[in-house]
């Protein structure tokens, strides 16, 4: 409308026509809303889209009452193990598929498909004896050659099986000498084989046999997945993200005592927490830290905290000055005294108490105590305490004198740094604010800057265009991944290294530990690596975030609290309805 519309009306030449139009408009709108739509639409593209599938059968035995309803903030992106990016997908995979080994709640690895296994002297041949009694969800018996086919498929097409290919890296040959034995031969000894096999899902070969290109494979929705796990996929509604699983009565370790599981996606923490409060859901896989205390107070709800491996860190630019392009970090950051002073300036307990509402633990190593049940964390590390006086004297002794503007400098070097952080959650901003104050007391000036994650990635890897960054990691259960973040090789486009840490001794140890099958030897190597990182400080680990979960006590009992979460198979197999 370009003309100023008149509020003065039109004269009476305007007949009842106008009124009729008005009425028609109202009627049309009413009709539209009444015939409105479903949350799925009839005009959706035809195909194997999950929106067309209706539940084939309702859960039996107690019906909907015995179905555990979980609420979470995310949703699976796809149920195709070849190409699933989001952790919610992997939660589902662990429930519907079985793997040779799996992590137990104490952090060790136990057999799942395998009842026992051994490795040859040279560390290159792994022999697994499978447990009897596994059946596919469609009733067919499960045999070792089917798992061999699955792993071979991944090995042959690592590009197509993008998100699982790493787990089969270094495998040479996988065979099934008989129906209950699987043999894996590797190129080099693999130190974390149990962890690898815990992510190699036994998916149903006929579903994946006929793809000729990687793209075809990746576009396959797999929304009628067949596995051998404790639960059977009933439906996955892509529009709403809802996943419905039924109990597998013929599960090799005994049928679950619940009828099924529903995973429900919520868009916001308040809504999810409210749903738990009123009983719309039975459990939450993750409670937002700022709502935790309130959730604890709800009637008939049990909330719990568990140690976790997720951590927040302060990244200090450690990029090689000879890098191309040259890093723009303040050269003062290369001085170990400056790093030490920064460590002294940080009050990690305060961060835990205030920003995380007490639901975290101050951190020291990039490998949290919770990883692998405490096996990998180096207990010999003594964290730098919060001591502003020490921070100041360290800097003073190193020659950084306090200027009249409150900022220390030494010759050309001035202790003024940019502090960048992602704009994704308010936690980073809170942490940054507190850091500004602490560093100021040591004579270090910080300018905080919130950035899009994308821009932050571009600024760190492999450009080194920053001074300090606050970020976080959610490592895999085995230390290998988080250790790789510190290797020189990962400081490439698309790589994981944001700090640019380059220590050839560390890199060598990384390669070494990959091939140490003897757990104690591997542990020693990994301890050494942690100490290197701790001393050189490319990261100052701030705190480990607790795993916060909650469930209603009036509906189900038997949830097992552990770093694996109450949604782990081991826990869900133990859950029974409250009578």
């Amino acid at each position: 409308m370009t003309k100023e519309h008149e509020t003065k009306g039109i004269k009476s030449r305007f007949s009842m026509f106008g009124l009729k139009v008005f009425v028609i408009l109202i009627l049309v709108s009413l009709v539209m809303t009444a015939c409105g739509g479903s949350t799925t639409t009839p005009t959706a593209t035809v195909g194997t889209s999950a929106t067309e599938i209706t539940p084939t059968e309702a859960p039996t035995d107690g019906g909907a009452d015995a179905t555990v309803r979980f609420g979470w903030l995310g949703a699976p992106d796809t149920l195709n193990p070849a190409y699933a990016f989001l952790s919610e997908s992997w939660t589902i995979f662990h429930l519907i598929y079985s793997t040779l080994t799996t992590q137990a709640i104490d952090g060790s690895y136990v057999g799942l498909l395998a009842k026992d296994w051994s490795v040859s002297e040279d560390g290159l041949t792994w022999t697994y004896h499978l447990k009897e009694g596994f059946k596919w969800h469609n009733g067919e018996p499960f045999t070792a050659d089917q798992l061999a086919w699955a792993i071979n498929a991944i090995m042959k097409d690592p590009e197509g099986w993008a998100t699982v290919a790493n787990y089969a890296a270094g495998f040479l040959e996988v065979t099934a000498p008989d129906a209950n034995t699987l043999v894996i031969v590797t190129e080099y000894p693999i130190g974390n084989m149990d962890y690898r096999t815990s992510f190699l899902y036994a998916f149903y070969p006929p579903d994946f046999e006929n793809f000729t290109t990687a793209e075809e494979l990746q576009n396959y929705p797999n929304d009628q997945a067949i596995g051998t796990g404790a639960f059977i996929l009933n439906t996955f509604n892509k529009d709403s993200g809802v996943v419905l699983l039924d109990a597998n009565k013929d599960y090799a370790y005994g049928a679950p005592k619940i009828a099924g599981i529903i995973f429900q996606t919520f868009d916001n923490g308040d809504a999810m927490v409210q749903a738990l409060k009123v009983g719309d859901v039975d459990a939450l896989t993750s409670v937002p830290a700022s709502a935790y205390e309130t959730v604890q107070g709800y009637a008939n709800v049990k909330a719990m905290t568990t140690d976790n491996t997720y951590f927040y860190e302060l990244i200090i630019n450690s990029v090689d000055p000879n890098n191309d392009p040259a890093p723009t970090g303040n050269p003062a950051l290369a001085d170990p005294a400056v790093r030490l002073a920064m460590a002294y300036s940080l009050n990690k307990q305060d961060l835990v108490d205030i920003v995380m509402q007490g639901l975290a633990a101050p951190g020291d190593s990039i490998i949290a105590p919770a990883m692998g049940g405490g096996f990998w964390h180096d207990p010999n590390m003594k964290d730098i305490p919060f001591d502003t006086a020490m921070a100041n004297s360290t800097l003073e002794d190193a020659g950084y004198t306090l200027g009249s503007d409150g900022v220390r400098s030494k010759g050309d070097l001035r202790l003024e740094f940019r502090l960048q952080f992602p704009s994704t959650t308010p936690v980073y901003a809170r942490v940054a604010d507190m850091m500004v104050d602490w560093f100021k007391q040591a004579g270090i000036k910080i300018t905080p800057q919130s950035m899009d994650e994308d821009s932050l990635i571009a600024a760190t890897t492999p450009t080194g265009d920053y001074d300090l960054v606050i970020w976080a990691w959610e490592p895999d259960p085995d230390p290998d991944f988080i250790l790789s973040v510190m290797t020189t090789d990962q400081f490439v486009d698309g790589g994981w290294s944001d700090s640019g840490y380059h220590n050839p001794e560390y890199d060598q140890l990384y390669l070494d530990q990959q091939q140490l099958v003897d757990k104690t030897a591997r542990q020693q190597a990994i301890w050494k690596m942690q100490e290197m990182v701790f001393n050189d400080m490319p990261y100052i680990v701030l705190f480990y975030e607790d795993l916060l979960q909650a469930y209603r006590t009036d509906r189900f009992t038997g949830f097992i609290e552990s770093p694996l979460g109450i949604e782990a198979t081991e826990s869900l197999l133990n859950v029974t309805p409250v009578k």
Partner: protein
Amino acid sequence: MNRRDYLLRRLGLSVVTILVVFVINFLLFRVLPGDPIRSVIGRNIRISAETQQALREQFGLDKPVFPDQLLDTFGQWARGNLGISWSLRRPVSEVLMSKLWNTVILIGLGQILAIILGVILGLLAGWKRKTALDVGALTFSLVAWAIPTFWLGIILLAAGSTWFGFPTAGIVSPANTGKPLITVLPDLAHHLFLPTLTLTILYLGEYMLIMRSSILEVLSEDYILTAKAKGLSDWQVLWRHALRNAMLPIVTLIALNLGFTIAGAIYIETVFSYDGLGKLFQTALTKQDYPLLQGAFILLAVSVIIANLAADLLYTVLDPRVKES
């Protein structure tokens, strides 16, 4: 100018506007430095450098921007193919369609209620001019304009859920997710109440003002005396004539309002986690899912442009003065 020329000019302008939208859309996301793929993947440990490259190829991000990507894209959009959402890994048009009705219901209901209530209140306010009711209505209108949409939403959300047990999110309860909305109307109504209330409060002010000024004008007309002489009651006279008077501006306001209503929908759907286009837009923004963002923007912009064109058409049809000159 005559009606035909006017319409042609408006049509031409609409087409140009749509083209401008296309160009903005395209330029904004394709000439960015930095890597759009990284924003979706973030620090997802499952995606190695090789997979990222494969993703880039899949989304055509490795081709030169001009002319390949530009022409490709315009051609696609014209055909209704809005690409694939990176974060949802589904065709954008499919995702948009699945949320479209939810927003239409919310906006439609909110507007209808705003119109009905606004018209009635306007009538009363104009009729009882300068009384407490009138002043109250005007004040309300004024203050409502100054209230941020999302803030009103938060307050109603907090009050509604704490004191009245209204749900805090979603279109339906978790138990009813995925069912056709027709079958769960009471649940839907329960969830729609607070968001619709928010929209209605914010928009009824304008309609009220139109109706009120229309009343005031009618009151000063001569034919009122004639009508009363004929024996009609005050009420009937006012209603029939004032309504007719207000009809045109109200109808055009509906179309004009579409632009604001979309903004309102974005805020309200975010606050109430209502699964419509508004929330989708906001989520796409946060996740930096550019195909989805672009597709949603095109859909929203084109809808508003068409609605405005329709309003113009309607205006020329309804407004006798545009016939000649």
